[in-house]
């Protein structure tokens, strides 16, 4: 739409002065009635300590909850499947009910740590196929650290 920049009907930067005034009033009213809770600002500040500098980050490759079908709301949430990968390794995660099952590929990882945004950590071992499990479904954001002989790999944060 080459003309959208000049057509007042379609250019959003053109606004009725009364509308602009109401929008300014609304900004004040919403900020007063619904401010960011200071507790959440604290969690945002605290997020910085989780910065990883020397551990390899495994990026999210697949998320069964991602996708365009935003209007589909499951009333009986079933499992969530996630897949993370670095150039050399992948971590598959299946969450169902109150269990997290997963696998580190290639096999050889000695164990996996579940890190919670609260700072808590839970460790578990891996079997010879690299499979691991946690028998709890944590609330809030978490990430997994796979302890491999080549070095640790940490996933992006996710919520299940």
């Amino acid at each position, binding site marked *: *739409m080459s003309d*959208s920049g000049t*057509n*007042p*009907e*379609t*250019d*959003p*930067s*053109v*606004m*009725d002065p009364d*509308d602009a005034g*109401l*929008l300014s*009033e*609304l*900004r*004040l*009213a*919403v*900020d*007063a*009635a*619904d*401010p*960011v*809770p*200071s*507790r*959440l*600002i604290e*969690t*945002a*500040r605290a*997020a*910085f300590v*989780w*910065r*990883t*500098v020397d551990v390899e*980050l495994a990026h999210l490759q697949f*998320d069964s*909850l*991602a996708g365009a079908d*935003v209007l*589909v*709301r*499951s*009333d*009986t*949430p079933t499992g*969530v499947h996630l897949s993370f990968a670095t150039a050399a390794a992948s971590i598959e995660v299946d969450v169902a009910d109150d269990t997290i099952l997963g696998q580190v590929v290639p096999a050889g990882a000695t164990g996996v740590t579940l890190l919670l*945004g609260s700072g808590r950590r839970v460790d578990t071992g891996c079997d010879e196929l690299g499979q691991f499990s946690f028998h709890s479904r944590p*609330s*809030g*954001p978490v990430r997994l650290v796979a302890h491999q002989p080549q070095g640790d790999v940490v996933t*992006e*944060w996710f*919520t299940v």
Partner: protein
Amino acid sequence: MIPPRLTPVKPDLPRLVAAAQQGDAEAWNALVEQFAGLVWHVIRGFRLSNAATEDVYQTTWLRLAEHLDRIRQPESLGGWLARTARNECLRAVKLGGREDLRDDLDLDLVDRTAAPVDRAVETEAANEILWRAFASLSQACQQLLRLLIAEPPLPYDRISELLGISIGSIGPTRARCLAKLRTSRGVYLLGGDL
């Protein structure tokens, strides 16, 4: 004359991002301060439980912390945060059912103490009425208006991308939502109920 919406990026944004990348916690806190409200507006456009709202807010900032080193264009940081928060909201909606389990934690998210105590009573009452009128709008209107009042402002092309609507329809939709807001406010001012 209406001021142009594309306000320039605060000159210190590139410096703050660079400093935070170097591990400067003060710079990170300044970034949080600058964008705390924007992330909040994006999330509050969804009707999530308190627990899910907190999770999404925290996850968004954790994501930024882990992606900080990959931010090449500091001026796009607001858009990046808004998109990340929105994606997490959509995910939280789908995660659905189990949110309710944690709703009984009685988390009082609204921080009443943040309001200045010496605000004129009339302003407070007018704000309260406008807030109630806003809360009565459709979710689509609330989402658009929140993105429009967020500071620092999001560029229109980013708003269009986030909401999946064309840039050309932002103006007319905004006008319609504000007209409804005006009507609702009128009803509440007369002491009526919607």
